[in-house]
């Protein structure tokens, strides 16, 4: 009994240590954002200082373009999520309710495209984009985000559809529903929580994407990732301003994540928890 309690306490402490380790970079980012550049540069870590909003003012100042970048981030993330879901739902529907011999292979193949590092396909995509004029273009970036997230979206939607008993779809079929009616009146309402969490995940992945955003855009379609990177300039690093910019960039998605925690947990367990 006693050793059990000790073990529980030890586990608790360990969990806190791990949590703090994971959280520390974000905490440090937050602290740095409220420091002056001089305070940010000290070699000895400084936890106690009088906070200042100077860096935020600079980061949000006219000419910094925060709202321009934020708009691009929001536009490309939302658009790629909507397009991704619109493409994934029919694909997942076919695979979940009318599977054939190759369905399993197809699913694995789709996800296997995620095994390739993005940089591996950079050159061909860059050349194609350059030829068709999609560089530094919000549509171009949206398409990239869609392609990037599509395997995950299909896989997740598929697993949610699989949770719906086939009998229900057959009952709708016998009741006289067309495929579209079955999809919109029966399947989608039942999979709605799953679709919401899938959409959220896709949204977050697109929002946080930096590799393609930085390489494929310059200014007009640039997202918040580019904005953060812009604080690393030829004149040097501006730690405090960069931190303030980063906080501003991740704040919307963290707030969103906070309010949708329950959906997120469901989404990440891939429909295993009902």
């Amino acid at each position: 009994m006693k050793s059990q309690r000790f073990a529980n306490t030890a586990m608790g402490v360990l969990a806190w240590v791990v949590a703090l380790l994971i959280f520390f970079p974000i905490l440090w980012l937050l602290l740095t954002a409220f420091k002056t550049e001089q305070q940010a540069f000290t070699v000895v870590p400084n936890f106690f200082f009088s906070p200042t909003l100077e860096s935020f003012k600079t980061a949000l100042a006219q000419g910094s373009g925060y709202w321009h970048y934020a708009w691009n981030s929001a536009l490309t993330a939302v658009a790629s999520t909507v397009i991704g879901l619109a493409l994934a739902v029919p694909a997942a529907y076919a695979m979940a309710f009318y599977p054939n011999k190759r369905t399993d292979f197809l699913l694995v193949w789709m996800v296997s495209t995620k095994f390739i590092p993005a940089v591996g396909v950079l050159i061909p995509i860059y050349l194609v984009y350059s030829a068709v004029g999609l560089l530094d273009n919000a549509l171009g970036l949206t398409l990239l985000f869609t392609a990037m997230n599509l395997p995950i979206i299909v896989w997740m939607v598929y697993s949610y559809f699989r949770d719906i008993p086939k009998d229900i779809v057959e009952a709708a079929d016998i009741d006289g529903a067309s495929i579209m009616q079955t999809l919109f009146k029966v399947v989608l309402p039942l999979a709605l929580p799953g679709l919401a969490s899938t959409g959220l995940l896709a949204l977050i992945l697109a929002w946080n994407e930096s590799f393609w955003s930085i390489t494929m855009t310059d200014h007009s379609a640039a997202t918040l990732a580019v904005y953060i990177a812009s604080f690393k300039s030829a004149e040097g690093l501006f730690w405090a301003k960069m931190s303030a910019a980063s906080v501003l960039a991740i704040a919307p998605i963290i707030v969103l994540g906070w309010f949708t925690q329950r959906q997120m947990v469901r989404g990440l367990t891939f429909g295993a928890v009902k």
Partner: protein
Amino acid sequence: MAIVELKNVAKQYGSSGNNAVDNFNLVTRDGEFVVLVGPSGCGKSTTMRMIAGLERNTEGEILIGGKDVSQVPPKERDIAMVFQSYALYPHMSVAENMAFSLKLKKRPAEEIKQKVDEAAQTLGIEHLLDRKPRELSGGQRQRVALGRAIVRNPQVFLMDEPLSNLDAKLRVDMRAEIVKLHKRLNVTTFYVTHDQVEAMTMGERIVVMKDGKIQQIDTPINLYDFPANRFVAGFIGNPSMNFLRAGHADGVVSGEGYRLTLDEAHRAAMASAKRQDVWVGVRPEHLRIGDASGANRVEGMVDVVETLGAVTMVQLSVGEHAVTAQLPGHQKVQIGDTLTLTCDSDKLHLFDSESELAIGREPTSQPSAAAEA
């Protein structure tokens, strides 16, 4: 209401292997209650799913009301189906579940409401109309599933083991209720079950299936009295029929521990039979205590005695065979006793030892639909 006709219907999965359903022929009467029964994997559910259109028959024709529907999708077949899992729409209320098909047909709202109320009243679920399926008990869900089927007033009802998720008592009640409902609506109904008691109590005609093939189609009492082969004989009836391997000579079949005299019909049949070794079948309820000098006797040592009150079930070893007998309730029997049983000659069944088909004995009139088709 419609006549349903299956002509040489077969279903093959993949490109090779045996047919899941083979050479299925049946013509129903208008408004008939047909039960498909057999062990799991016998093809009864596949047959029903082909009638529904959820599976396509790979051979033959399925006619509903004289129209070949083999290539017609389920929603155009004018059928309603009750699933084993009930398959209610979880996000809709009971009323919405029942109204779904009518709404898809764009019926006027008053008509839908009236039909749903009517069906709900028939099934005694008026007070549940606003609830969601998850708030209902198994029996209530079952009623909603039935309600969803009857509001449509379809040509054919299909029921796929609808009672197997209910507890024993509820199952008996619902059994009677479905029969009553059928009497009232008089819609041609196919009912799939693996439970021979359900089949016997509900079916006007029963199709016994095994390994994708029809074994026999007949009324419950004819299946009991005149099983076409050893499988049907063993499947129908509870407890199931005893089988003894026997040799035949001069109108007597016998083996170690038993000797049974045949009646005229069996004698005549055996005279023209090719083989003289047969399976003798006798139902437990046709055995009774006899004496050692009788013309029909089965002798063995008692292994098991089950006192059920109304009857006493006794299992004895007769030579290499185990024989079950259903004796009167207060029969004094003890394990280890040697018992002599007897039965009437006209209660015996004979089956060819190789083909396992029944020998002799035919029902006077066999309404075999396969023959009509």
